[in-house]
């Protein structure tokens, strides 16, 4: 399946790809493992995913053409 990737803050410094073609992954837990393998720096920091603008608190299915945002801790204000 194809997903669109959005990276923010310090994560955007090492995850610069905008698209991902992956097979055998169907949920956010699987995607996290995949991303942490591919980008080892990610496993060293706190981050959250948002799938189609929904912030993920627990594991969730990902469907083809989803937009997944990878977000480090917020620091607005």
């Amino acid at each position: 399946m194809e997903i669109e990737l959005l990276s923010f803050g310090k994560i955007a410094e090492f995850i610069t790809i905008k698209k991902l073609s992956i097979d055998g992954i169907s949920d956010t837990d699987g995607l996290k493992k995949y991303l942490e393998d591919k980008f080892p720096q990610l496993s060293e920091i706190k981050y959250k995913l948002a799938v189609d603008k929904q912030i993920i608190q627990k594991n969730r299915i990902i469907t083809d053409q989803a937009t997944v945002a990878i977000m480090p801790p917020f620091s607005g204000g």
Partner: protein
Amino acid sequence: MSDKKIKNIFVNGAISPSFISESIAKHSSKTEIGGHSIFLGQVRKDEIDGKSVSAIEYTAFEDLALEKMHEIRENIFEKYPLSCMHIYQSLGRVSAGEICLFVFTSSAHRKPAINACEEVVERLKAELPIWGKELFEDGSHQWKENK
């Protein structure tokens, strides 16, 4: 009192004191208001390992931030009897000493405005996908962390 449409909160660069005074002045016709509470975030020239922060560059996941802010706004209007609430957050570069956040709440009596303002600031910092990149004078940077 809440707006159904999603309001923008983002402004490009620093928030000027004159923008703040114009916002205040606009409320003089709302004569049911007795108290305004305002919070302003200002960029600190922090020193870290001998280097000074000269500016913060803000980025956001704008769509999601505006949706989240809309949700917070609705919650706050349900919780407190407010006349008005206005929120502005800078994107892009804001120099040390400049204003990057402006939260402005108004109510007939002081308590709702004061409590709502504080709650909006806390929730905005915790829940909105916004990131500050602290730029040092020597060109290096580090990512801001909220406490």
